[in-house]
């Protein structure tokens, strides 16, 4: 279920970390914009300045909140949820890395098998049927229907 708006307030600790990240992150495009020449530098510089201002204001607000009252540190996510989310994320990362080498269809097949395993879904026939149907549909719509190419991998390139 969606959370109610009042329940969505992050702890000041979170905002403090984020404000520091914003300020550090803004410095990269700022230095890059400073190296530009002519009129093309002003708009990016102005945007960076506005972002830095936003970061500074976040930092001040968090610092004030932390000085006034010390809220509890945000709880760490439950271990099982973290494992499942990270497992699916890693499977996706692996697929993206493998796709240029083995091609879209083998890499996707792997993803369609690994993620259900990570989530303890062991109905093999359903997994095989889903993988085959999905890949056939992708082939028909993207390759046959719209004439798009999908990564074929090193063996077929």
């Amino acid at each position: 279920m969606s959370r109610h708006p009042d329940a969505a307030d992050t702890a000041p600790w979170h905002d403090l970390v984020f404000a520091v990240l914003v300020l550090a992150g803004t410095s990269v495009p700022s230095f890059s914009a400073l190296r530009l020449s002519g009129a093309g530098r002003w708009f990016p510089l102005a945007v960076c300045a506005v972002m830095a201002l936003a970061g500074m204001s976040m930092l001040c607000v968090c610092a004030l909140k932390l000085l006034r009252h010390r809220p509890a540190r945000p709880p760490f996510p439950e271990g099982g949820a973290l494992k499942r989310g990270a497992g699916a994320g890693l499977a996706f990362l692996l697929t993206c890395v493998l796709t240029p080498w083995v091609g879209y269809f083998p890499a996707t097949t792997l993803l369609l098998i690994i993620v259900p395993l990570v989530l303890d879904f062991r109905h093999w026939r359903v997994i095989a049927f889903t993988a085959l149907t999905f890949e056939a549909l992708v082939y028909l719509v993207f390759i046959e229907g719209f004439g798009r190419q999908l990564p074929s991998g090193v063996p077929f390139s």
Partner: protein
Amino acid sequence: MFDSILSAFLVILEPANLIAMLGGTLLGICIGALPGLSATMGIAVLIPLSFGLDPLVGLGLMAGIYNGAMYGGAIPSILLGVPGTPASVATIFDGRPMAEQGRGKLALRVAVFSSAIGGLISGLVLLLLAPPLARVTLLFGPSDYFWVALFGLSSLSLLLGKSIAKGVFAAGFGLLIGLIGIDTIGGQERFTFGFVELVNGVNIVVVLIGLFGIPPTLKLAAGALPGGRETDRAEDAGDGRLRPYLPQLLPTWLKSSLIGVFVGLLPGVGGNMASFLSYNESKRSARDPARFGYGAEEGVAAAECGNNADNGAALVPALTLGVPGSSVSAVILGGLLVHGLQPGPELFQSNPNEVYGFMLQMVITAALLIPLGLLGSRLFVRVLDIPPALLIPIVLSLSMVGVYAVNNSLFDIQLLLVFGAIGMVLSHFQVPLAPIVLGVLLGPMAEENLRLAFMLSVDPWTALFPSPLSVGLALFTVSVIAFSLLKPLTRFTRARLRRAAAH
């Protein structure tokens, strides 16, 4: 004019034209529902195929694809939280929570009715008011476009989230992403960091799917129970009847249609901004704005109605002046040329049957969305019954193929990972993601028009205020910014006074 409309109406009622409109609308819904496929792509693929067809049959297919695709984007937005098109991002805000609350069918029905009403009003505006409205387009100069872009960005970033600073940061981040690539005026590379693939900029589909597609999918994985069941989604309950909600939806439809039509008239602004502005206006004027973002029916209605009300209006400058305001209208112009129709003021005299026929087809295909969408909503909502263990890899694979299909670039898949990670981090810190998308879309337009305004002006102090229209737009934008900044201050002062009185 009315004789021409009547004569064109009789022609488009021929069976071949009706089948073309129906088929085009169905195809459009499927195209819009698939991330990575867009109305522009669908129509572009269709043009060579429609060459041998009767002009109105070909144009009927195009009108159907256009209207269908703009609605189709709402389906994955509501059911999966993955936007099918950039214009359907705002639909996620309330559509996805509605689906999570077991009201997916209702959300789909609200979306289809809102899309149809927006499309109908826009189509009628195109049919009846195209020539006079074309003059409005010509009134806008570079400084006006800059103010429009700034207004869109500021209203969204300042009014959407709980934290103004986070909204401003998100808009700035989006603007910087939009500036990646070759500077169109100066010709120098910006923020490419040595990657040749970034010279042409970052594709919006990559940003969209990375920010809105990957984080909710991985969160769904984290929330899934062992065995792949979903923990927090309620069963889809109720018959999805729309009638009880009509009194609150009618004003939203009216306002959003007007916003969509106005925004659609401005070349380069597009349905994305129309849907965001309509959503914002609906939230601002609602009795209980706190419901927005947590499953408000008006939120879905505003986003979808605004988005589709842009369709017909975007064709006004294209048909009357031959100036395409968006990529879809540019492709449609190409379609008209293929069929021997030269867009411009003379089109209405030289080919009244075809031009009025096409406008009527825009109206009819918008109306066709209702039966098709209502029938489809029963089917589409079954997607939610797929176990997350199977749905998650399907969505991730579809995201990958959608991103790759745009430019056939493996680099885009790597960028998808980057934006997915950024999306995860930003949603963890509760940063609103919508201003990023609008920043990417409006960044280049804002900068280009700002620089053009300064280049065209003799006095740099008045470069941004050359006409009463510019002054009006500037005042409007500044008042939105001032209102957003003062609102928390007055709330704080009021709370302080209340506390003092209590003591």
